[in-house]
């Protein structure tokens, strides 16, 4: 027997409603017990004194870029980034090359992920080649190991196809995830439409582009009577639509990214804080992301919806890119933020500001995303430290400060708008199946 004791931490397991000083015993890679008086003979010990002990985070929206765009990220580097960010499970989006629309591609991802640092659960395409015309073989993809379906990066623009996808996915008990964007309204916009886009002379993408798609998706889901998950919602009206849908009892779930919870469109022009050189406008391509960073009012609404549980989960939308894809004109730059390694620290700004309680934040990073996609069907007890669960554990120091240094990221994507920013709240160690897959030096194993 291989026994490991995580001793003396504050154990926070929202799935079980646990928030107490306790030890966590892991035996042969599985959680054996939580308590204060555990059998510790022949046991390795991790001292978690002063730390929070949480189930490993679950990211239901990650771009691993593998296969086909390994210059941006690989399953190896992406899962290492996940481990550093406290994520022990990542659901990878299928906008790879080729797209994850066949069993062969799913099997490639799962086989490659066997030697990765954390668990990878693939999301399959809704449509062949993500082209939005014909359904992919959803049942075969499900049998191969997909846990949900999405054409993310693009919306399922055809509402009838969306409905058919939801119906076909229900055969396998899986959900469709839609990227909500009306392309006719967004119309090539490169940032949020508002005063900052006017200030910069950049083409704006209006909030209505997202909101009309959210409204349509809810209507389609309601009529089909089937569950639907909305990726990265970012506006006040989107949160209002989801709130109303939930009040009607519709099985609609939603996620929000750390950047949409904390950054506004102002940073595109003026940067995150006064420490930067603001003599000229920044046109910071590392802030270019889709959906775009919105107004302060939208950010406040997203935080409130997350706190209430209207938004079920925080998802990173980790979107790594090569340097040259960002070191160019703003119009030409790729959309996306490399987010796995900064997600927790960035979200902790909400806890430190009093906008969110720590247990709520942990819930939205663990039990929330598992519930949103129904991942416990694929991995029993995922997102919890209940006895028998995988030994996926993250040790957090909510008060520790660190400076974001993209050049030290494990991810190949150094594209973050947070470079040089000091964040308060860091990942001290990450355990996956009872093994330490990332730790700072100070953790003695």
């Amino acid at each position, binding site marked *: 027997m291989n026994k490991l004791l995580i001793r003396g931490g504050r154990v926070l397991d929202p799935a079980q409603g646990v928030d107490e000083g306790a030890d966590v015993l892991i035996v042969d890679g599985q959680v054996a017990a939580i308590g204060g008086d555990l059998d510790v003979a022949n046991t390795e010990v991790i001292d978690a004194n002063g730390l929070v002990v949480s189930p490993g985070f679950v990211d239901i929206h990650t771009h691993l870029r593998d296969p086909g765009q390994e210059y941006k990220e690989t399953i190896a580097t992406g899962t290492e980034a996940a481990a550093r960010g406290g994520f022990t499970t990542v659901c990878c989006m299928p906008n790879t090359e080729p797209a994850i629309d066949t069993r062969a591609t799913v099997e490639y991802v799962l086989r490659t992920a066997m030697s990765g640092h954390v668990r990878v659960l693939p999301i399959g395409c809704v449509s062949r080649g993500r082209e939005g015309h014909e359904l992919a073989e959803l049942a075969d993809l499900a049998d191969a190991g997909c846990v949900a379906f999405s054409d993310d990066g693009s919306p399922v623009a055809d509402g009838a196809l969306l409905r058919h996808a939801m119906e076909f996915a229900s055969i396998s008990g899986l959900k469709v995830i839609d990227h909500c964007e009306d392309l006719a309204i967004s119309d090539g916009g490169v940032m949020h439409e508002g005063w900052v886009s006017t200030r910069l002379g*950049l083409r704006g993408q209006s909030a209505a582009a997202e909101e009309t798609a959210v409204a349509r998706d809810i209507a389609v889901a309601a009529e089909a009577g089937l569950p639907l998950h909305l990726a990265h919602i970012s506006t006040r009206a989107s949160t209002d639509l989801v709130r109303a849908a939930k009040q009607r009892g519709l099985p609609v779930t939603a996620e929000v990214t750390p950047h949409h919870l904390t950054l506004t469109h102002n940073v595109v022009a003026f940067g995150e804080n*006064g420490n930067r050189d603001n003599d000229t406008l920044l046109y910071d391509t590392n802030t270019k992301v889709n959906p775009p960073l919105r107004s302060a009012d939208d950010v406040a609404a997203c935080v409130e919806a997350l706190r209430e549980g209207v938004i079920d989960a925080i998802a990173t939308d980790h979107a790594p890119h090569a340097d040259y894809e960002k070191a*160019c004109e703003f119009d030409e730059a790729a959309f996306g933020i490399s987010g796995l390694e900064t997600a927790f620290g960035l979200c902790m700004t909400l806890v430190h500001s009093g906008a969110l309680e720590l247990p709520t934040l942990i819930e939205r990073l663990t039990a929330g995303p598992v519930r949103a996609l129904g991942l416990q069907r694929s991995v029993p007890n995922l997102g919890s430290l209940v006895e028998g669960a995988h030994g996926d554990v993250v040790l957090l120091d909510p008060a520790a400060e660190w400076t974001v240094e993209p050049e030290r990221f494990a991810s190949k994507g150094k594209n973050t708008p947070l470079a040089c920013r000091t964040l308060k709240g860091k990942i001290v160690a990450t355990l996956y199946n009872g093994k330490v897959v990332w730790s700072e030096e100070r953790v003695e194993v």
Partner: protein
Amino acid sequence: MVKNASSPRTTRVAPSSQKRPAQLTERRAKTEGRSNAADISAERLSPDATWQRRHLLDLDDFSAAELVVVLDTAGAMKEVLARDVPRVPALRGKTIVTLFYEASTRTRASFELAGKVLGADVINVSAAGSSVQKGEALLDTIRTIQAIGADVCILRHHSSGAPYLAARESSFRVVNAGDGGHAHPTQALLDAYTLRSQLGDLRGRKIVIVGDIAHSRVARSNMWSLTALGAEVVLCGPPTLLPPGLNDAAPDAEERDLPPVRVEHDLDIAIEDADAVMALRLQRERQSGGLLPSLREYARLYQVNGERMAKAKPDAPVLHPGPINEGVEISTEVAHGSRSVVEEQVANGVAVRMAVLYLLLRGEQP
């Protein structure tokens, strides 16, 4: 007639605010120097007074005093241009590269002439016919120009912000010759020069900018410089061609960093008692893009014509940055009439660009 600068305005884009991020407060502080415009213009400060800039990217943070330095320098340059042999060696040994990713007649020709009059070597690079056509990235082209030994790069680019990237990533100086829909500072400077030569002090003067404001870098730069010089700027155009964010009822209105302009959709109202009218070029693709029913409808509502000009102040000048679509945004009679200063704008463009190049490069040893 000079209006009090604090007279009420119906739509203030950037209302005064209590809570403003530090970086914006600083910007605002610069723009609040605006009301001093006339005093400074009266003093005719020496060109040496204040010019510490490394680049000319936009006029968004120019004080009235600094604008006047450039305009007064341009006045001196006009005297040079009037000589029998308009050549001075002020920038001898300097290398100026014009790098144009978009077509241009006026801007490029006037920059080239400005550099030559001042004795600099001028090299012209166009996207068409250069490595850009082979897919060279902007940064690589910038590095090539740096390696050639350029002292200043005059950049026109179809993407907003491209000159900011060039300025950040190179050791030479950058002059923005028009970036996407963002800024065209030398156009706004020549407009300000032309307006001042027509009207004198611009404080309290009502200047109407008509047309496709949303896509106009000329309008954007002019908003900053004209308001800095104390003018009352009225933007006029159909709602489809006005940029978002000009609504001061929005929740984030107080943090907005935009110049204090007024919006009026009805040209017949906007133009009343105008001291000057600036018509903007209308791109024909705005119709196919669904922003306009037709050019006919646009012209009916927004063409600057004789009938409308009758509502402006007598002798109010008409400006246009060119190239003109006669019969669309401006009628032929007005474009070529006695109030048109379009050709004067072009001529002033050379002097203004000489002033900019001179102020940027003069202190440096070759």
